């Protein structure tokens, strides 16, 4: 039996906090684990695979986490490829479960980025002791700036407009208004985005994700086992990972990791773009969504501007994206990938209330890690209702 169709997501939990100065990162992970285990109807003692990443976990990170939870898993994976890590963890957990190396995989993330006052987007650019950063450090590339380089190139080649990028922020804010836990709920217009202050041309403040605290947990197991648990299983049909980088000097900046990971995931799932009811796509910046949609093949290169306009990616549109409000309005604690998996799972279970995508049977989640302008990772999942 192949991985496709034999593995399921059995439990999820998105931590309610958006501001947690009184909590630690690992505490948020543990509280998220409690939520996801309760969601699945499993106990901590059932967990035999532990997967985690965060902005501060380094060597020994998953071992330390195992101690905190007082568990002794037989499979550990601390893969950290940036914000897409947790999407990749689902792939890795599926492979491990399929190979019989663990049965119940717990994937965790926690962060206090906001209450620690981390300037995620505009805090880079000083000198660096890392020789690999020596070709970036002297020039003041911020995270926003890296994405802005891609946005500027896209506008130059295809005539993409700031108004079109702004449509993405407007749709995410509209969705956040339907999500009781979202950080930013008051509606915004295209003009609000265009009139917000410029951070790195052509990206305005409201083209950028917010900074919040937060965390989450996902439990992966075999479909067979998941069918006996508390919630309807969400089946993994396809997955893929990829990297994009500077190659030996002159890559096409508009060709993202999503092109490769998306092709693999959709190919493995044996589904076409028209079959997909909704997507959760890492929206670090508006350009990330537009460019990812093109690279995943939902539209041709250069057509992203039209694709996202006129409410087409809002609830009720042709392809709703991030019904939870995404990183642009719901939450963004630095590495947002886990929320893409959690929201896709909740949508496919049909438990999203006001923000539910009607009749959602098939969803695609795509995480990006790193920065589009230099090097990044991509991980894609195709998920289905059982």
């Amino acid at each position, binding site marked *: 039996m192949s991985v496709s169709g034999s593995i399921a997501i059995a439990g999820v939990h998105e931590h309610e906090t958006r501001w947690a100065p009184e909590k630690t990162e690992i505490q948020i992970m543990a509280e998220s684990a409690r939520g996801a285990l309760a969601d699945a109807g499993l106990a901590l003692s059932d967990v035999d695979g532990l997967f985690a990443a965060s902005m501060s976990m380094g060597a020994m990170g998953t071992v330390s986490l195992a101690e905190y939870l007082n568990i002794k898993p037989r499979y550990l994976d601390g893969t950290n490829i940036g914000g897409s890590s947790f999407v990749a963890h689902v792939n890795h957990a599926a492979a491990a479960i399929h190979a019989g190396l663990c049965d119940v995989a717990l994937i965790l993330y926690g962060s206090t980025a906001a209450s620690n006052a981390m*300037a995620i987007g*505009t*805090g*880079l*650019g*000083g*000198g*660096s*002791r*890392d*020789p*690999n*950063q*020596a*070709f*970036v*450090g*002297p*020039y*003041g*590339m*911020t995270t*926003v*700036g890296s994405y*802005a*380089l*891609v*946005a*500027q*190139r896209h506008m*130059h080649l295809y005539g993409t407009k700031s108004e079109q990028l702004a449509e993405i922020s407007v749709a995410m804010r509209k969705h956040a208004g339907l999500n009781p836990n979202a950080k930013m709920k008051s509606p915004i217009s295209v003009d609000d985005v265009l009139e917000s*202050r*410029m*951070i*790195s*041309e*052509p*990206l305005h403040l409201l083209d950028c994700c917010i900074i919040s605290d937060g965390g989450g947990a996902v439990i992966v197991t075999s479909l067979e086992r998941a069918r006996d648990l508390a919630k309807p299983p969400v089946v993994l049909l396809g997955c893929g990972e990829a990297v994009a980088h*500077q*190659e*030996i*000097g*002159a890559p096409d*900046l508009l060709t993202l990791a999503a092109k490769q990971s998306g092709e693999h995931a959709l190919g493995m799932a044996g589904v076409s773009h028209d079959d997909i009811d909704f997507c959760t796509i890492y929206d670090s910046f508006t350009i990330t969504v537009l460019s990812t949609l093109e690279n995943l093949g939902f539209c041709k290169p250069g057509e992203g501007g039209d694709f996202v306009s006129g409410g087409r990616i809002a609830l009720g549109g042709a392809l709703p994206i991030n019904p939870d409000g995404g990183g642009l309005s719901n939450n963004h604690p630095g590495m947002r990938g886990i929320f893409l998996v959690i929201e896709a799972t909740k949508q496919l279970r049909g438990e999203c209330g006001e923000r539910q995508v009607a009749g959602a049977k098939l969803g695609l989640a795509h995480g990006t890690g790193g920065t589009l302008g*230099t090097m990044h990772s991509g991980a894609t999942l195709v998920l289905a209702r059982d």
Partner: protein
Amino acid sequence: MPPEFTHPKPAASWETRAYWEGAGRHELVLQRCGDCGVVQHRPRAICASCLSSALQHFVSSGRGQVYTFTVTHQNGVPPFRDAVPYVLAYVDLEEGPRLMTNIVGCDPGDVAIGMDVVVDFQDADTSDLGDAGGAFAVPRFRPA
């Protein structure tokens, strides 16, 4: 014209010293593989096309075109905090490779994709490094 700023000093390693030593002589140094002929950047100890170690260094014309750019209006870290608005860009060199850089010597509003640019060097103060310092400079670009 935006304020002039001093680029942070990058860390050089054994693999990249030829590039940075070249910059100190006001030469933009690239690598060419002696076996397969490919030109690569960033510099590294092997050819990333054929894994040969027979890499040779040569001096680029220093001429190129802006591939893309962004005028940065917010950066919380010095010296860039006080240098806004500054232009972060990628420049495609005549020899093929692309460099991340800053465009200086013009109004940020005058920078455009496809604009012809030429390398410019800002000498770095290495007096704090004593005898180990030597001539050192950071390449950036200005309108040709």
